[in-house]
C-alpha cells in the first residue's frame, strides 16, 4: 500500500494540519507501513459479527432538565487566546 504526496496533503487538509515537506516525507514513509499491519484483520471472518463501540454496555443517560449554576463569563474566557470584551474573537468566517 502506497500513499503519494497528494493523498497525504489531502488527509492533512481534512485534519487541518499544515505539514512541512519533511513531515510529508516522514508520513509518506511511515503511514503505509502502519496500514500494512492493519491488513492482518482481513483474514478474520466477521460476516455475522456486530461491531463493538464500547466494551462495557452502557445505556443512554437521562436527567431532569434543572437549572444549575454555570461557569462565570470570566472563567469561560480565561483560556481564550483572543478576547474582545465578553466575546471570543475569531478570524473572518464569511467574506463579504
Amino acid at each position, binding site marked *: 500500500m502506497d500513499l503519494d504526496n497528494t493523498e497525504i496533503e489531502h488527509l492533512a487538509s481534512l485534519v487541518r494540519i499544515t505539514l512541512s515537506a519533511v*513531515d510529508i516525507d516522514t508520513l509518506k514513509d511511515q503511514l503505509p507501513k502502519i496500514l500494512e*499491519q492493519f491488513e492482518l484483520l482481513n483474514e478474520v471472518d466477521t460476516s455475522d*459479527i456486530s461491531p*463493538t463501540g464500547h*466494551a462495557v454496555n452502557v445505556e443512554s443517560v437521562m436527567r431532569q432538565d434543572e437549572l444549575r449554576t454555570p461557569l462565570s463569563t470570566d472563567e469561560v474566557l480565561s483560556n481564550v487566546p483572543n478576547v474582545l470584551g465578553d466575546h471570543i474573537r475569531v*478570524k473572518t468566517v464569511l467574506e463579504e
Partner: protein
Amino acid sequence: MGELWKLSLAEMHDLLRGKSISSVELTQSYLDRIKAVESDIKAYITICEDVALKQAEQADIRIAKGDCQKLTGIPFQIKDLIATKGIKTTCGSKMLEDYVPVFNATCVERLAGVGAVVLGKGNMDEFGMGSSCENSAFYPTKNPWDKDRIPGGSSGGGAAAVAAGEAAYAIGSDTGGSIRQPAAMCGIVGLKPTYGLVSRYGLVAYASSFDQVGPMTRNVQDCAAILEVISGHDEFDSTSLPRQVPSYSDSLDGNIAGVRLGIPEEYFLDGMESGVRERVNSAIETLKEMGAIIVPVSLPTTKYALACYYILAPSECSANLARYDGVKYGYSYQDTEDMWEAMGVTRSRGFGMEVKRRIMLGTYALSSGYYDAFYLKAQKVRTLIRNDFDSVFQQVDALIAPTSPVVAFEHGDRTDDPVRMYSIDVCTLPVNIAGLPAVSVPCGLSDGLPVGLQIIGPHFSEGNILNIAYSYERNTEWSKFVPVMN
C-alpha cells in the same frame, strides 16, 4: 524525622493519625526529595510547592479534628492529562502549554475531598500517545533504575516519580497500557480499572472508549486504598457505571488457594525477552506453590489486537483532538486573518509528530471508502476479542501474563520506527479493547531492570485481581526492591 518518602501509605497514615508527623512535614519531605532527584529524573511537568503546602496545612487541621482518612495529608502526583483547577494541565503538549483548567476532574475532586495533597503534574507522552514518555513536548522522563533508559509510557512521569520516591503515589491513565507498562518498567504496581469504574470527567480525551484513570503505587494495599476513593458513579461521565464501590482493601486476604489462573499462550510471544519469560514463568510457579490452579488457555484473537487498537484508538483520537483549533483555548497562531491558515498552522505547531501521525491515521481509517475496511472491521474484531475473554473467563478466575514483552529500553531506541514502538503494547492493548481490569505487579529483575506480572480479570473483578497481586507480593520480596540512585 528521616526519609519519610520511603514509607508505604499505611505507614504514613498511621504516623499522621497518631500525630507523630504532620502533613506539612511529610509534604516537605517529598518536596525535598523532588529537589534532590528531579533534575535527573524529570518526572514532573509542573511542581506546585505552594499549593501542596497549603493543602497540607488544611489536612493537618482536619487531622487535628479527628478526621484522618487513609489518604488524608498524603502527597501524590497526578498525570498532566487530568484537569486540576488553577494548576496548568498541559497534556505534555505545546498545544496546552499555558492551559489552566477552571474545573477539577472528578478523581481530583474525590482525592481533594479526603484531604490528599497534590505535589504536581506528571510528565507523559503527548495526549497519552506513546509507550516511552519520549513524546512529551517538554523533555523525556528517565527511568530511576537506569537513567539512560525510558520509564515506559504514557504515564512515565507517574511511574518514575513513585519509583524514585518523588510522590507517595501517582494517578495515571491507561488507554492501551499507559499505567501498567510504565509501572512494570519502573518496578511499581499499576492498576487499570474496568472501563466505567472511575469517572473520565476531566481526563482529557484521547480515545474515549478505551481511556481509564487508575492508581500507580509502591504496593498493592496502597493501590486498593486509592481505588476506593477514586471509583464510583459520576453523573458528569455518561459512561460511568452506577455501581456500589466495594472495600477493595477488605478483599486482600492473601489467600489464593483454589483460585483458577489461566495462562494464555498467545501472550508468551516469540519476540519476548528471555529474561521477561523467565521471571513470569517463575512467578507462575510461585502462584502454583501458593495453591492456585494453573490452567493453560488460549485467546486466539490476541494477534489481531494490535491492528484493532491502532485503527480504533487513532480514529477516536482524530475526532477528540479536532477541538484544538486555537479559538477557545490552547496555542493559537495569530499572524494571519485567514481562518483556515490560522487553524492549520496552530495545529501544525501545537501538536508533535506522534499526535499528527495518529490524527492522520484515524482520519484515514474513518474516511469514505476506507470506513468499512478499517474502522468497521476493527469494531467487529473488537467484538471477537471481547468474546474470547468472555469464554475464557468461564474457565478461569483470572489470567496471568507478562505486562510488557521487554524491559525498559534505551532512549531513542524505537523513536524512528512507529511499528516497532507500537508492538511493545501487545500484552496490554487487548485489556483496553475488552474494557477489563488488569494490574501489573513487580515480579523480579532481568539484567537489573524490573519485570511486571500482569493479572487480568473479568469486568469489575478488581477485588479479586488485587488479592492475587497482594498474595503474590506478600510471598516474594520484589516490592521491596528499589532503584539505587546516586
